[in-house]
């Protein structure tokens, strides 16, 4: 995945940290007012987890884009294109194409059959308890890995954008970001979180759009001239050709295939993305959400192509790599070059807002999964009212918030960039096969679901643990040790087919037969929307 780490301990030279903080403070103030206004109707579980299912497709699509375009996509992909050229662009394409899986196979059917969480769908026609526990486990695992990566990234971003380089200062900022996130999710629930994501998506896409037009205007709207200048500044014509990053060895080529597989199949199985489909009133609106998300995300990655090569041409890879924050500084440095401290301030604030919005989305997903799946349906066996469930969800938010602050502080300066790749690999291995099988394969059984989910989860984690990202390489998390027997940094190419195979094997070996009437109910509901959860009417 993208290196979103390694803080160089130098003072930040560009921009005005106070201006950056003021603009970010303004964002916090505006969103807080909106969250407080939105929280008035947070009474039931449907309000708290699914915003009363009252968002429109376009609003939800914008929020999905806000949820999905993390700081790693914005800063990381711009930097990757500036430094590795074509390979950075290649990487961004998987993130977009993946949405077709969500559009064609998952979004509408899921909206029609579930209530709040992924586990609702997976346990619909199988044995509730074991399947729900397994689905909640994989949900929590994905959220945890992703959350830790985001919080650790926040530390690196602080050094880059606010000029706070000492450990204590960064820890304070991580704590502030975590506390704000807790406040948004606690008070605003899904409605508040969604509004934060919508505002952030608009700012991010608008900011990237303005910078894109600006860069293109400098080159007379001639993409070829921009590319030529980027290659000239880098002094390397290979910048425009594939291979700079992924083509260095046969292993790295194969690794990229594994990564591409996890990206394209993992996106539609990320629990925080799946949960967003429940915030709209109907499957048709869920479809509309994905369509909006595809347009916005696609446009955004086209902007990053221009911004990345623009940063390469106007700033140069050497200057970017030497700056605090390394590759992640490409977009902020470009903003400073174009629009001075003010544009840098806006872009920095957007980057912060990005972390805030993404962690908020992950936290509410994890809290909903714990409160709804583990507490309400497994521990209390459904014998709890929705107020009681929301109370537990709110407490879970507090716990997750505190844990992620601690994790973010602990992970400072650690190379944990692989956690994002791991989150996608776990989603693609542990979640997607079971989602697809339970929606489309009549005979699919409880044993198949359990084998596939735990097998996929275990395979992805074990392979990562024994891969070069954890040990046996200079850039590894534990560079001093070497227990890496798995050569690839991305486990997807093994763990995803394995999970599909285990789902099939578990089913054909399963002696017990699932209830055919439940299967019929799920199939009819998923395609027609009969009896689907309705919007809450306030």
């Amino acid at each position, binding site marked *: 995945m993208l290196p979103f780490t390694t803080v160089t301990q130098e003072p930040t030279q560009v921009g005005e940290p106070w201006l950056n903080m003021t603009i970010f403070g303004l964002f916090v103030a505006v969103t807080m007012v909106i969250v407080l206004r939105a929280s008035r109707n947070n009474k039931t579980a449907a309000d708290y987890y699914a915003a009363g299912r009252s968002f429109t497709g376009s609003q939800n699509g914008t929020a999905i884009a806000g949820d999905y375009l993390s700081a790693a996509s914005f800063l990381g992909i711009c930097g990757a294109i500036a430094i590795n050229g*074509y390979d950075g*662009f*290649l990487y961004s*394409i*998987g993130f*977009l*194409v993946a949405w*077709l899986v969500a*559009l*064609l*196979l998952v979004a509408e059917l899921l909206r029609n059959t*579930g*209530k709040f969480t992924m586990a*609702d769908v997976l*346990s*619909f*026609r199988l044995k*509730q308890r074991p399947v729900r526990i397994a689905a909640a486990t994989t949900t929590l695992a994905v959220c945890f890995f992703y959350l830790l990566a985001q919080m650790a990234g926040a530390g690196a971003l602080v050094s880059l954008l606010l000029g706070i380089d000492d450990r204590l200062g960064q820890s304070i900022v991580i704590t502030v970001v975590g506390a704000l996130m807790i406040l948004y999710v606690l008070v605003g629930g899904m409605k508040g979180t969604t509004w934060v994501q919508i505002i952030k998506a608009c700012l991010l896409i608008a900011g990237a759009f303005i910078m894109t037009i600006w860069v293109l205007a400098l080159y007379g709207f*001639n*993409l*070829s001239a921009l*590319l*030529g200048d980027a*290659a000239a500044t880098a002094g390397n014509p290979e910048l*425009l*050709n*594939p291979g700079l990053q*992924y*083509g260095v060895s046969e292993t790295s080529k194969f690794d*990229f*295939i594994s990564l591409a597989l996890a990206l394209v199949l993992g996106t539609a199985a990320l629990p925080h993305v799946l949960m967003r489909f429940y915030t709209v*009133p109907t499957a*048709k609106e869920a*479809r509309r959400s994905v*369509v909006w998300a*595809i*347009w916005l995300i*696609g446009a955004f*990655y*086209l902007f990053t192509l221009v911004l990345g090569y623009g940063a390469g041409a106007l700033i140069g890879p050497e200057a970017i790599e030497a700056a605090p924050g390394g590759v992640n500084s490409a977009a902020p440095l470009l903003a400073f070059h174009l629009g001075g401290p003010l544009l840098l301030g806006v872009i920095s604030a957007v980057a912060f807002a990005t972390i805030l919005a993404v962690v908020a989305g992950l936290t509410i997903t994890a809290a909903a999964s714990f409160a709804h799946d583990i507490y309400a*349906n497994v521990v209390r066996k*459904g014998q709890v009212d929705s107020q009681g469930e929301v109370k537990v969800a709110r407490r879970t938010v507090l716990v997750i918030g505190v844990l992620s602050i601690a994790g973010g502080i602990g992970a400072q300066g650690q190379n944990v960039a692989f956690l994002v790749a791991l989150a996608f690999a776990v989603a693609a291995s542990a979640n997607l096969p079971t989602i697809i099988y339970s929606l*489309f394969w009549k005979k699919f059984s409880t044993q198949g679901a359990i084998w596939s989910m735990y097998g996929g989860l275990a395979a992805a984690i074990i392979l990562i643990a024994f891969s070069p990202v954890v040990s046996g390489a200079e850039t590894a998390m534990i560079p001093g040790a070497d227990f890496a027997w798995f050569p690839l940094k991305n486990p997807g190419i093994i763990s995803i087919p394995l999970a599909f195979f285990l789902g099939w094997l578990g089913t054909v070996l399963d002696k017990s037969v699932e209830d*055919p*009437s439940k299967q*019929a*109910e799920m*199939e*009819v*509901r998923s*395609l*027609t*929307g*009969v*009896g689907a*959860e*309705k*919007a*809450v*009417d306030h």
Partner: protein
Amino acid sequence: MGQQPSPEADPTATVDFQEVQQRPEFTELKRRHRSFVFPMAAAFLIWYFLYVLLADYAHGFMSIKVLGNINVGLVLGLLQFVSTFAITMWYVSYANKKLDPIASGIRQDLESADRPQAGETH
């Protein structure tokens, strides 16, 4: 979920879904849905992995300049965007025309059959 249907939220608790599953209009809906989404999913996955393999292993081909500094790799990459947008629009128009009318017909039939208007909050 299925196990805890609250009566006012679920007007279809008494529907015999196995019977509905056998109805010709439902089998037609299922056929239309699957005959679109499965081939389309296979097509875009093959096209995407073809692109990934070319970018990974055919550096010479991808580096051929087409127009100025724009090479085959960039053109194919941008075509991935174009195909993603095109499939999205194609699916939406197909679903609007071929899937939604049947789906809403079955839904209205089932939701009005036993308990009229129950659970409709808007």
